[in-house]
């Protein structure tokens, strides 16, 4: 009986070792995209998206990808995603990956043999006041975290806008060059200024 639980837990841990956690994914990425994308390097066994209950909006999605062996998992993190900016389904925001941890799995089995003890504190207990403060601290930290999340999103959007502007400028520049080359006006100007054709 206990051994069944232990076995399942061990199997779970093994699965964790074989899984990578990947985020900064576009919400349009789905399972098949991930499978194909990463399939260029490793064999993907399973893809599970982590549902986003507490943060709203269009934030980056994250997924747990289970691959064949734990070596493959390490490889893909080290050699592919960390070494080069790897992009899935859109440029240029690269994805990030790291080895998965147990707490990332929301369907994990319980640790076998663990005892949870619960205790209602008496209001008379001096620790009651401390516990109250701890509870308040929890809420404060949650507020801090959501604020930080907002900041992060704003920074990301800012960067995105900046790059979009730069892209537009570049595109116009290129279009201009293209246009000029197309209607041979570049060559005409070249002969006017006695510039070699090859140098255009």
């Amino acid at each position: 009986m206990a051994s069944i639980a232990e076995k399942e837990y061990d199997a779970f841990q093994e699965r964790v070792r074989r899984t990578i956690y990947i985020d900064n994914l576009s919400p349009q990425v789905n399972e098949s995209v991930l499978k194909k994308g990463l399939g260029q390097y490793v064999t993907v066994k399973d893809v599970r998206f982590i549902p986003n209950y507490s943060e709203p909006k269009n934030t980056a999605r994250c997924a747990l990808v289970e691959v064949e062996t734990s070596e493959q998992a390490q490889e893909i993190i080290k050699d592919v995603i960390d070494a080069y900016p790897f992009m899935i389904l859109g440029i240029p925001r690269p994805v990030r990956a790291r080895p998965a941890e147990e707490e990332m799995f929301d369907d994990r089995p319980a640790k076998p043999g663990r005892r949870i003890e619960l205790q209602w504190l008496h209001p008379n207990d001096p620790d009651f006041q401390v516990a109250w403060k701890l509870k308040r601290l929890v809420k404060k930290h949650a507020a801090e975290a959501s604020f930080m999340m907002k900041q992060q999103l704003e920074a990301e959007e800012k960067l995105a806008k900046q790059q979009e502007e730069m892209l537009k400028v570049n595109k116009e520049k290129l279009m201009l060059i293209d246009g000029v080359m197309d209607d041979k006006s570049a060559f005409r100007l070249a002969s006017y200024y006695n510039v070699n054709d090859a140098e255009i």
Partner: protein
Amino acid sequence: MKMLVEVPQKENGKRKVHSSEYVTYDGVVYNLHDYVILYQHGKTETYIGKIIEIIDTPHSGKQVKVVWFFRPSEIRNYLGDYKPRWNEIFLASGDGQGLSNTNLLDGVTAKCTVVCTSKDKRNHLPSKKQLRSADYIFRCTFDVGKLKISRKFPNKIYGIKVENFFNTRTGGHLRLMPTQTPHLSYREGNSKKPQVGTATLTKVHCLANVNLSAMPKSISLDGVQEKMHSGLSVQRAKRLFLENFSSSESLKLERMKKIRFSEVETATAHQRVEVMLEAPNEVSSQVEQDQATNRENDTERSWLKKMITPWEERLPEAEKEGTLVLLENLDPTYSSSEIEEMVLSVFNERVQAKMMAQTPFSCPLYGKAFVIFKSKDAANTVICKLDRGCLMLTDQRPVVGSAGILKKPEESKLFTGHYEIRMKRQTEDERTAVATAHCSQKNTLEYGMAMKWRLLQEKTRRWWKQLHENQMKEILELKKQLKINI
């Protein structure tokens, strides 16, 4: 450091003080008779007061004198059977400490709206719109001398006519304009200042502390014990505890589970529940079996059905029905089944629980879980119990429960950071090249942009790491003060 420092009031003649009608602080204009929120750094709750005077001293700058409002939590020992509404506060009245203070502007953080819903003849009842938009309401006073709440309003509070505290007939804000008659009567009160000034106004760091130490019937921990001994509350507490830990039903289930609890013998005894979890798998399958063999009500059947539907659908449904509770400050290594066990043993409610996955954004010390109860009442009772009491887990964490609220995802627009590039002559190949997953090469424009993103990602990663470290430090500091060792 923000301190609600009390300024000793000298006689009017010795010190030049100018009274103003408004003061600007931090970009906000505070008028006389405004309701403000004051905060002292390090305290857990803000204080609400009504500005009754703005003083301009030559040495210490501008100060505001406020009459306090009490939150129900501050006077919980004197409420008796009175059940305050969720946003109800109590106006201080009578004589004594805690009625009013003069504070530096540092402590003022914001304005708020307070309406009076008392049926006193001198009060204009607020419109529904005002009621809804008000931050707080009050309809009782708390006499700081007699330590009693009362629905009757005395004629004067702190020497000021009580009409100033009631609502006026103005449509929007309940701010008394200086030109209206109430202000004139305030002037009368002003002349009485020397008389009031002789009241003992000592340095106040925290209003709650004033109540704690200075007053004879203090709200100290001893006071709580006294109250507990006074019969009525003990019985109430006993009933509550017995409801929580009724073992009769759970013993019927065939599980390897021991629940030991000791009844409240003295006011200082702790309640202990030890739950030994053996073979959680077997337990959960047993639970399902037992649930199937239970009396087949419709509720039971629908409960089973709910276990089959996926969580993505269950959560919004539960939120609508009001049965969704969010438990926070759990150990992040707990699993969903352990949470269900825990809730069952403590509250005797069968629930469905789901631990939320940890992300790089969540502090590694906190675990959260969504719990769906069978009924809205059950969910609310549990939230209340968790709020009022402190349920401590194994590693000295109090569980925090709150109503579960799901955030809805926005309409999917283009993901931040992904661009559409349409060039005039782009071949099919080129277009698909962008769409497939690939590594960027160093000589492309794309690479440069990607590197910038990498930079941002690294920056944000460090932000989060720093935040989590700070939060952990705060938690550990508080935990050091805990004396119990479970």
